[in-house]
């Protein structure tokens, strides 16, 4: 109860020299708190529902034919409503058929047709899993890594170079490519980690700037003879040897590839690092209370560098799958090699609440939306951009749990139970404002 000794930190005691962040938790820390404590599975689920509802409304608003029907809404409301319903239903049915399973393919009795949609979903989810882990691991150490884009590019450059420069035996080549990608991303992120840990520069600013550096460095590289594909003026890199690419798992007709195995392994590794390794223990301690971590003998700068390197290594794996994966038939670098995944990764980590299982499901959801979105565009004539809106709404809602609770009239997560206990223990003054 009122036992919590008020911090002796007062204007009456001299300011601590290292005091900048003593009182104010870092931005990364605040974000982690918001993600980890602010949400429940229910809120996440409802956010997805809301995202789909908003997506439906936008479909109607962007379809002129249906909108015209609303002009005589009061004369014949049924017409406009049924047209809207049909539009939205067709779109979401296509979304489902494109991402999970299409019943009409059952008759074909041809496995690649039936399994195609789920293979697409998994393939699309693969880089997102790496990305979700990358952002989450930094989050847990109290760092907000905005620089996945740059780290993806760094990983992709090294992986691609390893892929086209050498011609090595099956297996060995791919392993070296993967290692090169991890190293590229880890090294690039570690720069930000060192600047943060040793010199106290803000990681958000640094990583954003490093993104630009990576992006324009890549553009320049693609003009050099070492990287540019011979015989073209375009900014396209050389193709990797086939031994360097991620092999498909179930034949050429399904895009599902070795990447997903790596991604699942990475998830297990992430879980292990967080919950079973001394290093993960330190990362979490530093992320949660750097002062206590320091007093317990941990090196905060070291933990920050390690966290950034791990984060970057994971981002580097996106780079590998972007160059060596099935969506890049030429297996070559382009200036758009990161495909915006560095930022989608942040939303995946947010939605997955930085937990390994959460990241897996969030990635699969986003992968499914991506996979189904293409089908939706093709067969229902609804722009794939709607999918991005749906994703954005979901993340928006997840980032603001009170909003979802208000919309659905949920009781606050902190009424009763443990939350109330916490309130009592700390004297409950938090309730006053």
């Amino acid at each position, binding site marked *: 109860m*009122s036992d919590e000794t008020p911090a*002796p930190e*007062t204007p*009456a*005691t001299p300011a601590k020299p290292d005091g900048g962040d003593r009182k104010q938790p870092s931005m990364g820390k605040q974000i982690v708190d918001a993600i980890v404590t602010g949400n429940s599975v229910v809120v996440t689920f409802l956010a997805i529902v809301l995202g789909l509802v908003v997506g439906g409304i936008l479909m109607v608003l962007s379809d002129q034919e249906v909108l015209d029907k609303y002009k005589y809404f009061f004369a014949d409301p049924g017409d406009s409503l049924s047209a809207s319903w049909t539009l939205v239903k067709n779109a979401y049915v296509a979304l489902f058929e494109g991402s999970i399973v299409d019943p009409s393919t059952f008759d074909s009795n041809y496995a690649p047709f039936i399994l195609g949609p789920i293979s697409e979903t998994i393939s699309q989810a693969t880089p997102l899993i790496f990305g979700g882990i990358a952002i989450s691991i930094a989050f847990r150490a109290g760092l907000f890594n905005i620089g996945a884009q740059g780290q993806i590019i760094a990983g992709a450059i090294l992986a691609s170079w390893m892929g086209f420069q050498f011609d090595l035996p099956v297996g060995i080549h791919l392993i070296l490519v993967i290692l090169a990608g991890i190293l590229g991303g880890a090294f690039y992120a570690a720069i930000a980690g060192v600047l943060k840990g040793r010199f106290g520069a803000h990681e958000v600013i640094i990583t954003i700037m490093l993104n630009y550096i990576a992006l324009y460095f890549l553009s320049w590289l693609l003009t050099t003879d070492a990287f540019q594909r011979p015989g073209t003026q375009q900014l396209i890199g050389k193709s990797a040897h086939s031994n360097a690419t991620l092999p498909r798992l179930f034949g050429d007709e399904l895009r599902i590839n070795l990447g997903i195995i790596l991604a699942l392994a990475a998830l297990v590794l992430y879980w292990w690092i967080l919950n079973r390794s001394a290093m993960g223990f330190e990362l979490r301690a530093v992320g949660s209370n750097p*002062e206590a971590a320091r*007093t317990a003998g941990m090196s905060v700068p070291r933990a920050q560098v390690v966290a950034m390197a791990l984060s970057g290594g994971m981002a580097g794996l996106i780079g590998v799958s972007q160059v060596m994966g099935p969506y890049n038939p030429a297996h070559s670098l382009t200036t758009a090699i990161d495909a915006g995944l560095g930022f989608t990764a942040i939303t995946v980590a947010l939605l997955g609440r930085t937990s390994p299982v959460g990241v897996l499901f969030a990635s699969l959801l986003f992968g499914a939306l991506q996979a189904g979105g293409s089908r939706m565009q093709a067969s229902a004539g609804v722009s794939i951009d709607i999918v991005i809106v749906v994703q954005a709404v979901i993340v928006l809602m997840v980032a603001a749990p009170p909003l979802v609770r208000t919309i659905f009239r949920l009781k606050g997560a902190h009424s009763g139970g443990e939350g109330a206990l916490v309130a009592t*223990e700390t004297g409950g003054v938090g309730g006053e404002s």
Partner: protein
Amino acid sequence: MTALKLELRGITKRFGSLVANDHIDLTVEPGEIHCLLGENGAGKSTLMNVLYGLYEPTSGEIVVDGQPRTFRTAGDAIDAGIGMVHQHFMLVPVFTVAENVMLGEEETKALGWLDRRRARKKVLDLVAEYGLAVDPDVMVEDLPVGLQQRVEILKALVRDAKVLILDEPTAVLTPQETQELFRVMRALRASGHSIVFITHKLKEVKAVADRITVIRRGKVVGTAEPSASETELASLMVGRPVDLVVHKEPARPGDVRFTMDKVTVVDDLGNVHVDGVDLELREGEILGIAGVQGNGQTELTEAILGLRRPAAGKITLDGRDLSTLSPRKTLEMGVGFVPEDRQHDGIVGEFTVAENLVLDLVTRPPFGGGVAINPKSVRENAYKRVREFDIRTQSIDSPAGTLSGGNQQKVVVAREMSRPLRLFIASQPTRGVDVGAMEFIHQRIVAERDLGTPVIIVSTELDEVVALADRIAVMYRGRIVGIVPPTASREQLGLLMAGVDDPALLAAAAGKPDAEADGTTDSTDTTDSTNDGEEGQA
């Protein structure tokens, strides 16, 4: 002003399955200082938050001057004449005293122009009326804690509070500031205000209360007169007989194990916090470091641990130089360290109790050593320590942040004492800890000494230092101004804490009998509080 009679009848407050208040009856008569005494977690603050409209009671009613009232918000309570000073102040640091007092009730002139002059005048009137000396034009951030608290009291008074609730007001104050607060409380009582004074410190209760209500585990377990002995009050509060005296054999100091040689600690801004400190500590003795908060004690202990590198001087433990070691290396050498501010530096609130119990041990066997942690040994250790140190937690997997402060402190102490030590350092080992836990922690510290470990205790509570220490070093402005035996008089210690090291004065003081808790002389009071203020602005 018209005085106000406040009654709480059968107040019950539940949080889920937890009953924080169980049919509590409490009557606060006009013009009395009513003390609410109870251990940490007994339900005192919950009760006051109910009274102040922050929590809605599950059942029961609040009666003001015979009228049942419902408070839905703090605003309702304020309107009814109830004011509250929280443990954590609700002040805007960059506003002046007058601005803070007026915040929310701004006086405006035409066009919404703030009427600062009227605000100032109101503050000055109150200052004159109750002797609450504070300058209305000073920025709150430049005030020492004691004066900030006074601003909080002014805020309540300006809103016509007739009943003032003070939630653990002395927890943040120096002994001198506490005396000042008591003086203010008495002045308020004389003018017809009543005060609900929440605390778990027995001396203070006896010094200032008119009536005492004791709460234990959410229930009123009795009322007492201030004339009751401390032992009686403590037993009532804890529910069993409590021993307030630290039992220990005389120290049997052995060889010198730990030395500090002209150690100086300077911060990045060039402020000297520790100024050429020489200390020697022998095997099997407890050295108490006394002093008013902010005289370099914190920095001294941080330098020993390696959190700060001394600018000059040498620190050795068993012949090894500590001054260049990292905190981890120092800890691995066998130093146990209980930081001054446990919530800030001692525990990771989001981590479980089990994890916190190995916070600085995970890199060592049996909990770790290689890359992996051994979860089984972490859990086994947690079960063992929770039992051994009587840590009250729902489970070893509860986040440590949900524990009461006393139990958090037990987690830190348990962790730091659960390994072979060469040196044990504890800052404010029992701050915010209730009587029962305090007794236990003191016993453990003495037991550690008896094992032969040299122990350093830093505390601003003179009682604690006197009770535990075999020798007392007094720090003032970064220097050790004197080392005295624990039999030294309070007078003498008080003078040293105020930086007086004139041998003649000290000799005179040494002859005087011990001063009572509220009887320290006024001259010491003023010197000390001003010094404290200056330190802050340095």
